[in-house]
């Protein structure tokens, strides 16, 4: 009863908020500041080239087959060791970033980048073809001038 009159229950809560009043905010001011994603982060997918500027991809079609969203389409050319892709399209407007294609690839020709800012005005921008898939994704990252 005394506790009720003295509003003990409310004061306990207020003490807690008062305590946090003097602690530093934990907010990250995006896009002024950005957090670096962890190495395993599943961002946009890139096609990897080896040292001789050739595609690692052997156009085995496994990624296209395993994709649950069916957003990968490719065409290969050549036989045996010469086999390489001539067309490789990933539709990132359909991609669900499950990572099955990267997991299934026998030659590690696909890799994840830490690029995640895929909100675009233009839908066609998200339809990546073979040239776009090999570019450095860093240049598309949003920057905010202070």
């Amino acid at each position, binding site marked *: 009863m005394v506790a*009720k009159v003295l509003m*003990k*229950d*409310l004061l*306990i*809560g207020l*003490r*807690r*908020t008062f305590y946090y009043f003097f602690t530093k905010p*934990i907010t990250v001011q995006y896009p002024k500041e950005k957090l670096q*994603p*962890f*190495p*395993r*982060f*599943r961002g946009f997918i890139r096609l990897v080239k080896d040292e001789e500027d050739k595609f690692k991809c052997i156009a085995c079609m496994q990624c296209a087959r*395993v994709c*649950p969203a069916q957003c990968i389409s490719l065409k290969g050319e050549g036989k045996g060791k010469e086999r390489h892709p001539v067309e490789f399209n990933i539709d990132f407007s359909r991609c*669900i*970033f*499950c*990572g*099955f294609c990267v*997991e299934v690839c026998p030659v590690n020709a696909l890799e*994840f980048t830490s690029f995640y800012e895929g909100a675009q005005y233009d839908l066609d921008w998200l339809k990546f073809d073979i040239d776009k898939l090999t570019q450095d994704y860093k240049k598309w990252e949003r920057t905010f001038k202070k």
Partner: protein
Amino acid sequence: MAVKEEQQFKELLAKGTSLGKVDQDLMRETIKTQDLWINMGPQHPSTHGVLRLILSLQGERIVDTEVVIGYLHRGTEKLAEARTYHQIIPLTDRLDYLASPNMNFGYVLAVEKLMGIEVPERAEYIRVLMAELGRISSHLLWLATHALDIGAMTVFLYCFREREMILDLFEMATGGRLTTTYYRIGGVAYDLPEGFLDKVEEFCEIFPSRVKDYDDLLYANRIWLSRTVNIAKIDAETAIALGLSGPSLRGSGVNWDLRRNQPYSVYDKLDFEVAVFDGCDVYARYLVRRKEMLESCKIVKQCVEYLKKTEGPVMAKVPKVIKPPAGEVYMATEAPKGELGYYIVSDGSTKPYRLKIRTPSFANLMSLPEMCKGHLVADVIAAIGSIDIVLGEVDR
């Protein structure tokens, strides 16, 4: 209430001198009370998604509630018939997107049961660890939004701070923050990264003190108590009859937890208590979830202890093309919201013939009309919050 009002009105009419005799008779014939129909949702911020309720009111009191669902229907069950067993895993992520590890867990267990796969113990412990983290994160988001609906804004911010820590852990281990897609048929996708277990341990140490933060703001707070105690009552018998499960059922005093009653994975080797409170109201459900968070934290600690000591494979030997034998299987697991069941009918091909998902929120939602009866409109929001629905799971 309404009857009393009508009587008062009649008395007033009888006393009335300003009205003539004819007018009085006319009024008696023409005026009558009628239920008021009010539409709530589907874009109401406190319906946790796209839930539509048709409330029929007498004054401020609720007579009946009709639940309209289907605004987030994506046809997951039908889609699954056109996907291979492996490709269904990302679909299950998107059922309850707040606790995706738990959703994966039920599905992979069902397929493993159908195929008779033995999973390495280390993989099982990793799965349980992830599932319990998912449970904490789901309950944190529930507490945050539930308190926000009722009017306690501060808790929302504190809860999201801790949830962020768990999402970071998910990102570190699995690569995804919300849709983790970490579980595979026969194990998990990859072993835990270095330093992950230390981070989990760190979280487990901080977390109980953070729960105290929420307690300070809610546990004995008089506004919280008056908004939750004796609101949306549902007794044990009705709760069982309506098919309630999970924390909502345990809030009615029924001691039923699939992790203990039908142990799957390695839950029988872990030591934890089942949170049961018999208040039958919104406050009891809050207490259940609050205790469950702490119990999950205990389970996580035990898993970390085991995982630190042992090493080994995290994937069983599974054929590349998954082709379960013809037959059917039902596997029920305890998801954060209640009993999550997967019923798979296989015809021996690479795709399931039929996949039925028994989602907890869908069954729990059907108790809402029972809970809201006789309460005020503002209590509907407390009731919706207390059964913790996610519309991605209700509509599938």
